[in-house]
């Protein structure tokens, strides 16, 4: 039955000839582990295509979706593993590709009649590298997008054709949606198609001319390819795949911060282009294309004409040249690659930026895990995150006067602080410090302001001056702690299980003992007009209103305001406001330490 099926199939598609062509090949000189480079390259390429097609099934090439869909892929163990395999197999492919080339060069595999194998293989070099670099920006990461931006400008620096090629590639002057769709088309269809076509020539030529023996031409010990060489090929492939899978599982493909023009760019090319990156340093201005184009093309041309050169050279001369190319080529490449790596290691500023971007990348990941990505895209994750934006906005608008520092030497500290330290504003501890006669005069609160010798400070001092004994002092201290708790309760920062009776006693003390409501309004007591309203003190709404216009009647009307500017006194949306509603909310949420934190990892 099965035999009949086989015969029928054989009659129709003659599959046996393919299988026979494979297994009846002879390996001159016997099987060798070093020969496995060819097979391993082919199968790694197939692994890349298969994992790539699988990833395509859940990937979306657009500026809003690319990063989000990659994050989505990474959420399942299978997607994460596939992306990791795709990434590490690609790195490995490039290494293996150059090893394979060196091996063929050393054994003289380019000689007649095998020139076409050599040439098609060499033409694969730029194609495979282009294939690799068109993949990196697809993740929609800051790193990938700034890489393609720079690469676009490198292309543009090519005389005559550079500009139009850059514009076609990027889909305009700037990196954007069209850049991603263009790179995607190149990465998943055009380049694979070109590579596949050249591979077809490459492999069919190998079959036509058979395998090359050792350089000494001794092919007495020919052995069938199947299974002797096949076994070595498959063993190497399996080891490689185990290694790639472990790397994918343990390390994973990079998870970078989403592309965002607000972020600092620290573009470095991938490791395989670092040598050209270094070379470029030695050519300036309009001559850079010599490093980025002319030199690579010359090297490729030298290798392409090796079959010709070899004819005119003696055997010794040829061996010398080939060994020279391999040794000098590798050392030059390694040296050029090591230099920028070494320089970046020494460069503290670069390392700091890299580290900041890593932190932001992790943060974006955490936010996407928790909230999902909004329709505006992954950039929005960090843009609406108080933990990320708060310090940025605070430094820009607040930190010329206000510190935000848990203790000296930490957090944000202006060179000349002239306003209260806002770290922990609204918490019981912060308010308790404010009501302490020693600390209210310190630089932490009113020390550097016009309020240093104002009524608030003298009132706080007065509470303790009236105390006659240590017991009195302790009692006042205790009451003030309750007041701090009550005001923190107004801010929404008191512990949730706070005793209501305690709060009520504190309210009475505020009115009767400490006479706060002589100046401040608090709920139904007191009047506005001389000191800030304590109703809802330091709550989100209170802080936003305060920053919008501190001179409003509710806060420090007229002369009562020391120096704080009004950041949004007009209606939201007015171009005359310094801060938008969203910026205010981000600053205030950050001051109130309200942002999403993931549960601690176990």
């Amino acid at each position: 039955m099965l035999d009949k099926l086989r015969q029928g199939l054989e009659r129709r598609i003659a599959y046996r000839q393919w299988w026979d062509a494979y297994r009846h090949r002879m390996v001159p000189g016997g099987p060798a582990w070093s020969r496995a480079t060819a097979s391993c390259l082919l199968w790694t390429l197939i692994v890349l295509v298969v994992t790539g097609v699988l990833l395509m099934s859940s990937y979306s090439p657009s500026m809003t979706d690319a990063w989000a869909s990659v994050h989505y892929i990474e959420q399942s163990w299978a997607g994460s593993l596939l992306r990791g395999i795709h990434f590490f197999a690609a790195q490995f492919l490039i290494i293996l590709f150059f090893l394979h080339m060196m091996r063929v060069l050393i054994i003289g595999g380019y000689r007649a009649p095998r020139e076409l194998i050599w040439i098609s293989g060499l033409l694969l070099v730029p194609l495979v590298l282009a294939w690799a670099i068109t993949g990196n920006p697809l993740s929609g990461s800051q790193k990938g997008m700034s890489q393609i931006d720079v690469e676009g400008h490198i292309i543009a620096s090519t005389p005559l054709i550079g500009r139009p090629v850059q514009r076609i590639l990027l889909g305009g002057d700037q990196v954007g949606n069209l850049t991603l769709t263009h790179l995607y088309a190149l990465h998943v269809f055009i380049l694979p198609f070109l590579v596949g076509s050249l591979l077809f020539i490459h492999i069919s030529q190998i079959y036509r001319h058979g395998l090359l023996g050792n350089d000494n031409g001794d092919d007495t010990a020919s052995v069938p390819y199947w299974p002797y060489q096949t076994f070595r090929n498959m063993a190497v492939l399996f080891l490689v795949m185990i290694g790639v899978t472990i790397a994918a599982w343990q390390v994973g493909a990079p998870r970078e911060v989403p592309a965002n023009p607000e972020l600092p760019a620290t573009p470095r090319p991938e490791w395989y282009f670092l040598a050209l990156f270094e070379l470029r340093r030695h050519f300036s201005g309009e001559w850079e294309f010599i490093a980025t184009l002319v030199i690579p093309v010359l090297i490729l041309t030298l290798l392409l004409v090796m079959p010709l050169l070899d004819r005119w050279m003696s055997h010794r001369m040829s061996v010398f040249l080939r060994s020279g190319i391999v040794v000098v080529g590798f050392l030059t490449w390694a040296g050029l690659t090591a230099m920028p790596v070494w320089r970046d290691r020494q460069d503290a500023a670069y390392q700091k930026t890299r580290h900041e971007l890593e932190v932001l990348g992790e943060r974006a990941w955490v936010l996407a895990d928790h909230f999902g990505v909004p329709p505006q895209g992954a950039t929005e994750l960090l843009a609406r995150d108080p933990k990320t934006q708060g310090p940025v906005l605070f430094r820009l608008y607040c930190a010329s006067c206000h510190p935000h520092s848990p203790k000296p030497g930490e957090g944000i500290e202006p060179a000349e602080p002239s306003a209260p330290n806002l770290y922990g504003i609204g918490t019981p501890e912060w308010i308790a410090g404010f009501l302490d006669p020693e600390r209210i005069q310190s630089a932490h609160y009113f020390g550097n302001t016009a309020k240093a010798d104002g009524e608030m400070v003298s009132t706080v001092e007065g509470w303790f001056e009236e105390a006659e004994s240590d017991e009195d002092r302790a009692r006042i201290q205790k009451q003030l702690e309750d007041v701090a708790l009550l005001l923190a309760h107004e801010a929404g920062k008191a512990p949730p299980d706070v005793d209501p009776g305690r709060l009520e006693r504190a309210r009475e003390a505020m009115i009767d003992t400490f006479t706060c409501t002589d100046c401040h309004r608090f709920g139904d007591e007191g009047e506005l007009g001389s000191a800030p309203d304590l109703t809802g003190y330091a709550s989100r709404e209170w802080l936003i209103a305060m920053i919008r216009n501190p001179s409003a009647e509710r806060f420090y009307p007229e002369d009562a305001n020391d120096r704080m500017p009004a950041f949004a006194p007009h209606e939201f949306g007015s171009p005359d406001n310094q801060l938008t509603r969203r910026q205010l909310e981000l600053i205030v949420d950050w001051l109130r330490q309200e942002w999403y934190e993931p549960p601690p990892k176990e």
Partner: protein
Amino acid sequence: MNRRTLLKWASALLALGSALLVAVPGWSFLVAALRRRSGKDSVVQRVLRLEDLPPGKPVAVPIVGRKQDAWTVYDQQTIGRVWLVRRTGTDVPPEKARVDAYSAICPHLACLVGLDEQKRRFHCPCHEAAFDWSGRRIPASQLGHANPSPRDLDPLKCRVVRDSEEAAWWVEVTYQRFRAGTERRIPETV
């Protein structure tokens, strides 16, 4: 077993092992949708003020909610449509008013059913399923052709409630989805 046979088997096993390293996660990744349970069982939503709903005549209202579409999360998006029919007149006090709600998703192949005011029917534009204004299937004898819908329109829980300030009466719907194409109502996620 000689060395040659051993190597053949070893080659095949190594190739299989390499293939599995990609095939296992690959398969799991492709069929991930089978395991994915997204969304909630139902969404309770106030859809319309009672005073805006005329007695007797069906009115279609959208159900708006948070929607996660793979990697994108929409805060406010239409996630369903519901037909409301106010059964009692305006003379009945709101607390006694009766409103029926039907999912606008046709139980046949999940197109959205529309309104045929002349014939007082719900009518599905896709394959001409038709239902009366109580959601019952119109029999083939009246329709002139077989009614493709396997069941009546899916009724949804619906009640008339007051808002928190007790200022207005609202129609509140518990929105659910059911599998299309089956006689039985099999709940799905919203």
